[in-house]
């Protein structure tokens, strides 16, 4: 037809005036290729999308996987058939290394119907053009100018001469294609050893139908983990839709375990939440269950003392509760408080997810605990106060438009600049002040507040009073 890659649109229009021009969407293409690569994980976990110039490909390392599909030929036929069902016309080549497979897939005509060559037949790539070596166009032009059009012609030149004349890239490209230099595939998703696949004969179209299949997949994975004396901390289920879309749901446990009933319950909860976003379309024909994080299980000693046994049971109950609720409302909403060694009240605790239990029973020194209120405002509220000068406790203060007379107090607890400056919190407007004097005060009717004064009376700027908590 005379149309070619890199041609200008004017030139193309001169050849075919009615040509329809559509702008390429490289990002969208890349995204689609990545999605397809995720779906192709069903054939091998070593799966990666690969783009060279305008050539889009997916690399699959099928070492050890082909027998699961009845041999290489059947695997290739299955992939071709599936992609044809999606409306994708693909070229497939199966070779001992990445470079030769890529070269054959793009430049060998037989790849249309699927091509497989063994290590002994690798010399077949000699007849392919030098573009199959994946070098930049400038080097290709130079080689063409010298009449080196085929890989075979290039291979006959001595390696040292090749490097001297064209640089090291040509030799490297040649070696990679001929399998003399290894080239790694970086998988689209991490490789998880604890993984099982559960193929489904008739595609499942409903969520109700999915649950029993899911139960079997979870049970299989739990059996695999149990055989290794391991327990999963997180579990992921991937649902492969027949039309190439993959959904996944993930659940985490507070304690590593391999009990199928617990995992099924957690994953079912996640499935129900994700149900609105999941369109099962023409059905799901494969479920993959994997445990990205698995730990060795420790043997639990059964305590005969009823009190200790009750404590163990109680700890287990809390973990299970945290797991169930985090599956329902999200792990970030189930938290535990972790004390930090810091005098500044708002920095003396951090929140951690209840599922990341580290079994740390940290406590706060008693003398600090007795000076702190049970509730601390996220952001201190500014108040107006009448107080003894220069650094006495407040006598009266105005908080939320109400006036309070102070009757009793405890303090001050002075927190000075170096500590405040050590870990400044951007949200706090108070770090510009040099000191904070904290007071626990009780008003005439008995309400308790945790107040502080930032700065001194008589200083360059007037001090400010804040309520920081109470209870």
């Amino acid at each position, binding site marked *: 037809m005379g149309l070619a890659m890199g041609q200008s649109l004017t030139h193309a229009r001169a050849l075919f005036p009615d040509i329809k021009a559509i702008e390429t969407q490289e990002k969208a293409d890349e995204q689609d290729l990545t999605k397809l690569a995720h779906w192709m994980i069903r054939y091998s976990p070593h799966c990666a999308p690969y783009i060279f110039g305008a050539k889009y490909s997916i690399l699959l390392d099928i070492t050890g996987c082909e027998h699961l599909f009845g041999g290489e030929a059947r695997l290739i036929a299955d992939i071709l058939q599936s992609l044809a069902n999606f409306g994708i016309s693909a070229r497939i080549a199966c070779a001992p290394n990445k470079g030769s497979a890529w070269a054959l897939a793009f430049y060998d005509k037989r790849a249309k119907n699927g091509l497989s060559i063994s290590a002994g037949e690798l010399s077949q790539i000699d007849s392919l053009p030098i573009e199959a070596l994946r070098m930049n166009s400038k080097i290709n032009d130079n080689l063409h100018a010298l009449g080196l059009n085929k890989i075979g012609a290039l291979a006959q030149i001595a390696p040292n001469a090749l490097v001297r004349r064209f640089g090291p890239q040509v030799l490297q490209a040649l070696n990679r294609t001929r399998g003399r230099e290894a080239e790694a595939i970086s998988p689209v998703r991490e490789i998880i050893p604890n993984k099982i696949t559960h193929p489904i004969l008739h595609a499942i179209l409903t969520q109700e139908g999915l649950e029993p299949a899911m139960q079997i997949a979870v049970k299989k994975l739990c059996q695999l983990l149990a055989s290794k004396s391991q327990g999963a901390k997180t579990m992921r289920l991937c649902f492969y839709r027949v039309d190439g879309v993959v959904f996944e749901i993930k659940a985490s446990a507070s304690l590593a375990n391999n009990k199928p009933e617990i995992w099924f319950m957690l994953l079912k909860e996640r499935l129900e939440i994700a149900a609105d976003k999941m369109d099962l379309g023409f059905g799901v024909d494969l479920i993959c269950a994997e445990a990205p994080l698995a730990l060795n299980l420790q043997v639990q000693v059964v305590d005969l003392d009823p009190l200790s046994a009750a404590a163990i049971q*109680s700890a287990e109950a809390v973990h299970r509760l945290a797991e169930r609720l985090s599956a329902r409302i999200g792990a970030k909403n189930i*938290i*535990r408080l972790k004390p930090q060694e810091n005098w500044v009240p708002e920095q003396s*605790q951090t*929140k951690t997810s209840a599922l990341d239990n580290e079994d740390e029973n940290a406590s706060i020194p008693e003398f*600090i*605990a007795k000076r702190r209120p049970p509730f601390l405002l996220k952001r201190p509220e500014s108040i107006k106060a009448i107080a003894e000068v220069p650094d006495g406790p407040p006598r009266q203060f105005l908080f939320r438009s109400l006036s309070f007379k102070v009757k*009793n107090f405890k303090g001050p607890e002075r927190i000075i600049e170096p500590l405040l400056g050590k870990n400044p919190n951007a949200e706090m407007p108070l770090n510009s002040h040099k000191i904070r004097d904290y007071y626990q005060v009780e008003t005439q009717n*008995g309400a308790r507040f945790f107040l502080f004064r930032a700065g001194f009376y008589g200083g360059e700027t007037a001090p400010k009073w804040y309520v920081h908590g109470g*209870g």
Partner: protein
Amino acid sequence: MKTQAVLELRKSINSIEGYKNNCANNNGNLPTGAQNFDKALFGGIALGKITELRPDAYLSELSMLGFAIALAGALLQKRAGDLVIVNDAYFTQEWGEIYAAGLQGFGILPHRILIINPQSREHFHSCMREAASTNGLGAVLGMVCAKNGFDLVSAQKLQFAASQGGAPCFLTSAYRAQGFCAAHLRLKISPRPSRLPDWAQNIAPAALAPLGAPRWGIDIEKSRQGSIGNFELEFSDETYNLCEPPVLANRSDELQIWPKTA
């Protein structure tokens, strides 16, 4: 015969309301440490039942939260398990986040606290039910704002879940929040000025006095098992228990009748 019929009727009403066979508490009671208060409640806070705490005014909400923590702290001294707090954004915004250091002052160590932050009313109710029905927890504390109030059906469901779990279950209601109709015990909390420590009795009245133990006024508004009444309770940070403040007595007359020594 009539008594028998009334008993049968009571049984069936109780079973409809989500209670077990009879009015007596099957899960038992846990004493708070304040003797008269426990006596009025027939042994203390009922396990596996909902205890509702209400403030007497908007500003008493903070004191009510303080009392809830003190009550949970007192019970956790006698009971294994963690304190599960189902938090509410209203209380966090109005009165602050739960502060581990302050809770330790009431005897609740940080690793015994599990905080749940539900994001909607439905999640709040389901988290409360899930926590209340879990066996082996130390105590469950739910904070109910006006938006998350329980209607008749959800209240009964929660009460039923609590009777399965068997842990003491508290609900702290915001001032304007709808009352919890299935509450086993409803306490109205108001702040009370603290008592001066013994060593500070001679401080001049004009000076600010040092802080004593926190004190609350408790009105038992409803009790399915005990009697109603008013109490003043203090929290002792030595024993981590609730107690009734000692009544001051004027003993000057007693001094006069002492026999004079020769």
